[in-house]
């Protein structure tokens, strides 16, 4: 809310400097976002006096003026406006001045005459709404003075929180200033001068929906003359962020900003029979609203209508037919209270949220309906010269009794961790208009509010009862009182202590394993990325959930994609089901910046929905992508590109770090995203499952990735979602030496090495400790479809040094097994 200080001062004295006031209001909970010097946009604009106004020698529509700006020679300035005459004081933008909107004024030639600046309209200065005529300044304005001296102001931009609708106005903020300074609040006079007309003769109001419209106060003003509001008022409205429209319309905006009461005014001539009906819309009804949009009205919409049809959407926007126009002479003032929820829903339904609907949504003080109607009528009479009919139409004049709220000062202290004496608490509350009394015995305390209300017996505790001012709808429970006390006292009263209450039980961090994986991968050269969970529909289609084997404790990928119904853009409209697409986008981003080697990973979630029970589920995955140079190029090392083996190496490293068995790979030929000859399903015991492979060259093209090869993997890992890493059993190393044997196994070229290795392990006997593939050979003297796999086998016993005989038996068994299981034989 924009608050011109000059306006605020109508209601409360302010001695503090603007910055001090801002600080104090902020510490009271009315956060001042900015302190703006209003008029800073008028640099180089001074008060001038017109000495002469003559016709321009060459242009009928222009005048040539001579202006005294208080600095020696009068200036010759060409002007196109017609409302000026010698003797007037006017704002003069001197050459070099910069007007609002960054408009620079220079010495220019206009039809052969040099113009030494510009005379300004109110609109050009953002001071009034008048763009046609030059702004005429009061005669007492000092010639040569900067305009800011005359009309400058300070505007505070206050962030009023949603619970404090009462403070969305000058009076509300004046009350807060009063809480700070103790200066009294001056409520403006509201009584209008009443004529002999009686309102009963002009206006009837029927409320068909008293729940949605608990109070409607109407006033009737005749004989108004539509024109601009007083300039002082226009200046205030503009500084507060409202465009001046006309005197009558400006009154309603002025009263809204002054009292926080949205007001609507109707052209009385457009209200048939002077009858206003507050009712719900009927099927098929339409209304042209003030913004000249014809709207189909939905039946839940509360309307202001006359017997012939809708006049406006209650509390949200008026209709075009009853709009105040230049021809208006009679005005009906509507100052009503509407159900906050209904207004909010309606404003959202028609996408018509306004300053008025914002205030209605937060709830309105009952008495404001009458005060607002009166104040509006009074100002219309003052600014537009109308006659106010005697009396009001008021559908609910009974003021509700003020709310009473019991509280225990000791409980206030217990919540805050302070020891404020009862008397001080009462003083603090009194400063925000909350008087307190000693509560009668048996008073119950409201500890909690709707929708979980809870009242307790005060018991023996000292109890006070606060009378809540009608505008403070936010004070409902004991904790609210604690907040009032501490915000008025200042939070510096709360000491900073360390807790001395009992500790909770130990709990493993669910992030521990994730952090282990992150550290391991960073150490292996991969950088962590964090990408959007919301992606494009195309990406979700291309990168669906993988059907990898389940990992115990980890969610399975699947379900239908979850789609956002109100997305910001289609690029971020569907919850992803795989991390791979996101990572490839990161690869692409970096490739486009000529960053050709990219090694990244992300630990993130996939999301899916099950329609049968409207459930959703989320699963954690690790994904990584590698492309470009596998090692940072150096002068003494030839470049080597990342390939599938690097990706597998990373997985093997992870398996070691997490205490999982060495990974197994099985060829994966049917994942359309991956190269059918360079992809594998990978599992490591039951602790890791996923897939790894080079990206399919076709996809590489589709994604326009400027890379020869991108290797990716997506893995489910036990513990990623919150489990703990296992602790390995330790084995004492044998004191007896291990003996190595190298075997070159000739098998068909199509035979996977992993099968050969598994065969060796299966037949190697109890002494076989390790099998490592160290060479693959194809070519002469082997056959065309053969290869030789060289393995180093290590044998070891716990209790003795092995003999050649021990090994011979084992090798013999392996040899037989290879022949039988994989059709292999040893190369000799």
């Amino acid at each position: 809310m924009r608050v011109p200080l000059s306006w605020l001062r109508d209601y409360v004295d302010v001695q503090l400097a603007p910055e001090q006031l801002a600080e104090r209001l902020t510490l009271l909970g009315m956060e001042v976002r900015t302190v703006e010097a209003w008029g800073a946009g008028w640099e180089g604009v001074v008060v001038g006096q017109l000495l002469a106004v003559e016709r321009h020698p060459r242009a009928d529509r222009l005048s040539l003026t001579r202006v005294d700006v208080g600095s020696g020679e009068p200036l010759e300035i060409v002007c196109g406006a017609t409302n000026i005459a010698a003797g007037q004081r006017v704002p003069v933008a001197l050459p070099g001045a910069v007007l609002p909107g960054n408009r620079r004024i220079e010495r220019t030639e206009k039809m052969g005459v040099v113009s030494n600046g510009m005379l300004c309209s109110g609109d050009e200065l953002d001071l009034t709404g008048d763009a046609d005529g030059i702004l005429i300044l009061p005669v007492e304005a000092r010639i040569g003075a900067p305009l800011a001296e005359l009309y400058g102001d300070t505007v505070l931009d206050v962030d009023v929180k949603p619970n404090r609708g009462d403070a969305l106005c000058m009076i509300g903020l004046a009350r807060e200033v009063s809480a700070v300074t103790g200066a009294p609040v001056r409520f403006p006079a509201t009584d209008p001068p009443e004529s002999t007309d009686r309102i009963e003769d002009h206006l009837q109001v029927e409320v068909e929906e008293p729940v949605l419209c608990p109070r409607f106060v109407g006033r009737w003003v005749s004989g108004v003359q539509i024109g601009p509001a007083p300039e002082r008022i226009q200046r205030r409205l503009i500084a507060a962020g409202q465009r001046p429209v006309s005197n009558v319309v400006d009154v309603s905006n002025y009263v809204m900003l002054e009292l926080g009461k949205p007001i609507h005014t109707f052209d009385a001539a457009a209200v048939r029979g002077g009858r206003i009906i507050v009712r719900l819309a009927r099927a098929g009804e339409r209304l042209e609203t003030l913004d000249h949009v014809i709207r189909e009205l939905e039946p839940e919409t509360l309307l202001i209508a006359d017997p012939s049809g809708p006049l406006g959407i209650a509390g949200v926007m008026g209709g075009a037919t009853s709009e105040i126009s230049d021809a208006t002479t009679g005005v009906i003032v509507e100052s009503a209270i509407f159900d906050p929820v209904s207004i909010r829903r309606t404003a959202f339904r028609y996408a018509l949220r306004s300053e008025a609907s914002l205030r209605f949504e937060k709830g309105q003080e009952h008495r404001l309906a009458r005060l607002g109607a009166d104040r509006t009528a009074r100002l219309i009479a003052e600014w537009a010269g109308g006659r106010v009919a005697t009396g009001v139409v008021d559908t609910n004049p009974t003021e509700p009794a003020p709310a009473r709220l019991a509280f225990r000062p000791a409980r206030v202290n217990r919540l805050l961790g302070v020891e404020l004496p009862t008397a001080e608490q009462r003083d603090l509350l009194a400063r925000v208009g909350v008087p307190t009394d000693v509560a009668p015995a048996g008073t119950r305390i409201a500890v909690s509010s709707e929708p979980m209300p809870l009242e307790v017996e005060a018991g023996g505790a000292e109890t006070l009862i606060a009378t809540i001012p009608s505008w403070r709808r936010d004070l409902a429970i004991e904790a609210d009182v604690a907040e009032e006390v501490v915000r008025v006292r200042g939070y510096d009263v709360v000491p900073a202590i360390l807790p001395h209450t009992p500790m909770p039980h130990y709990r493993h961090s669910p992030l521990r394993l994730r952090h282990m994986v992150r550290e391991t991968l960073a150490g292996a050269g991969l950088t962590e990325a964090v990408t959007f969970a919301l992606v494009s529909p195309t990406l979700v289609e291309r990168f669906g959930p993988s059907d990898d084997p389940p990992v115990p404790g980890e969610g399975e990928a699947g379900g239908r994609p979850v789609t956002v119904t109100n997305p910001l853009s289609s690029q971020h409209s569907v919850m992803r089901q795989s991390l791979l697409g996101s990572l490839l986008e990161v690869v692409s981003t970096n490739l486009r910046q000529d960053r050709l080697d990219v090694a990244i990973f992300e630990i993130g979630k996939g999301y899916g929905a099950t329609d049968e029970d409207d459930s959703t589920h989320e699963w954690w995955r690790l994904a990584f992508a590698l492309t470009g140079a596998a090692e940072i190029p150096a002068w003494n090392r030839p470049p080597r590109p990342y390939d599938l083996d690097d990706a597998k190496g990373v997985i093997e490293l992870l398996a070691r770090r997490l205490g999982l068995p060495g990974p197994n790979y099985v060829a994966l030929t049917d994942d359309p995203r991956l190269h059918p000859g360079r992809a594998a399903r990978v599992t490591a015991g039951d602790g890791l499952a996923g897939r790894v492979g080079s990206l399919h060259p076709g996809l590489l093209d589709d994604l326009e990735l400027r890379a020869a090869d991108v290797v990716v993997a997506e893995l489910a890992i036990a513990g990623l979602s919150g489990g703990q890493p296992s602790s390995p059993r330790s084995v004492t190393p044998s004191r007896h030496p291990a003996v190595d044997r190298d075997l070159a196994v000739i098998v068909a070229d199509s035979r996977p090495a992993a099968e050969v290795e598994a065969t060796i392990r299966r037949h190697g006997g109890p002494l076989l400790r390790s099998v490592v593939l160290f060479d693959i050979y194809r070519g002469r003297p082997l056959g065309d479809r053969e290869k030789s796999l060289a393995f180093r086998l290590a044998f070891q016993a716990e209790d003795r040094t092995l003999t050649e005989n021990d090994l011979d038996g084992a090798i013999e068994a392996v040899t037989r097994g290879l022949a039988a299981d994989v059709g292999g034989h040893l190369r000799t």
Partner: protein
Amino acid sequence: MDLADLTRELETLRADALAAIAGAPDSATLEALELDVLGKKGRLTTVLRGIGALPPDDRPKVGAVANAVRGAIESALAERGAEVRSTELAARLAAEAVDVTTPGRPVRRGTLHPSIEAMREIAEIFEQFGFVTYESPEIEDDRTNFQMLNIPPDHPARDLWDTLYVDVEGKLLRTHTSPGQIRVMQAERPPIRALLPGRCFRYEAVDASHASEFFQVEGLMIDEGTTMADLKGLLDQFAKAMFGADKRTRFRPGYYPFTEPSVAFDVECLVCGGSGCPACGRSGWMTILGAGMVHPVVLQYGGLDPERYQGFAFGMGPERIKMLKHGITDLRLFLENDLRFLEQFR
């Protein structure tokens, strides 16, 4: 051959050998010489074969001479050997010298994302005070995200969270980590000291300080006597741990429907130190998080009696913490994954 002949031959051998040793250029030559003179089939052995032809009385005399000759040659070999090896070592060292000023062979090291690291740093600080970590779903129900946090449907406070809704009945993308408060309260009995880090979503046009996806860390502490003073003490410790022990902090009033009273927690401007500058809007303070005493409605939805239990909650943005700490000026960098940005971290 008589004694004199043999003696003369031995002397000749000594003279020849010593000359050859002195002139030997390298250790290979010396080794060859040693073999040639002193080896099993060497010249000394050959000469001494003649000893058998001498009278027995002369044999010890020749033996003595022969030993002297051997000794002289051996010590000459050792001496020259040391010289030659030392020269050779020097030559080798010279030959092996490299330009030690060239850069090392780089070992690739990845970096960890600042958002996730911030959450870890935050957790490390609060873990010292007994806080334990929980997680809760990102696709939440409206009830837990709003209603149980004292934000009824159609409540104006909903404006504080522009929400992304999904095509599953009653569900939305959580707008904050606060629904985790409800889940922790329902799962645990006090004393509760919980941290809830995670990803959040808002219907928010993206600019330098707004994101549609971001992270939050929620804190929750509940017991019979947990007060706002505890909150202030812990947050003060947190700010000092995160930004420096000399940093002043303050509470000022805030507003959240799920806390009462609510506060904003400010730390003195990290740029100007509190004197006021453009970075802090000339206030001298930077807001780092929002907090407050858990609202009784929320406690009850969590299954706790608000007359018995009380406590506080806070919520902070790890990205904001990182931005303040590292002088990052644009929130968008966190999800763009430009390696030039990410690699500045560790």
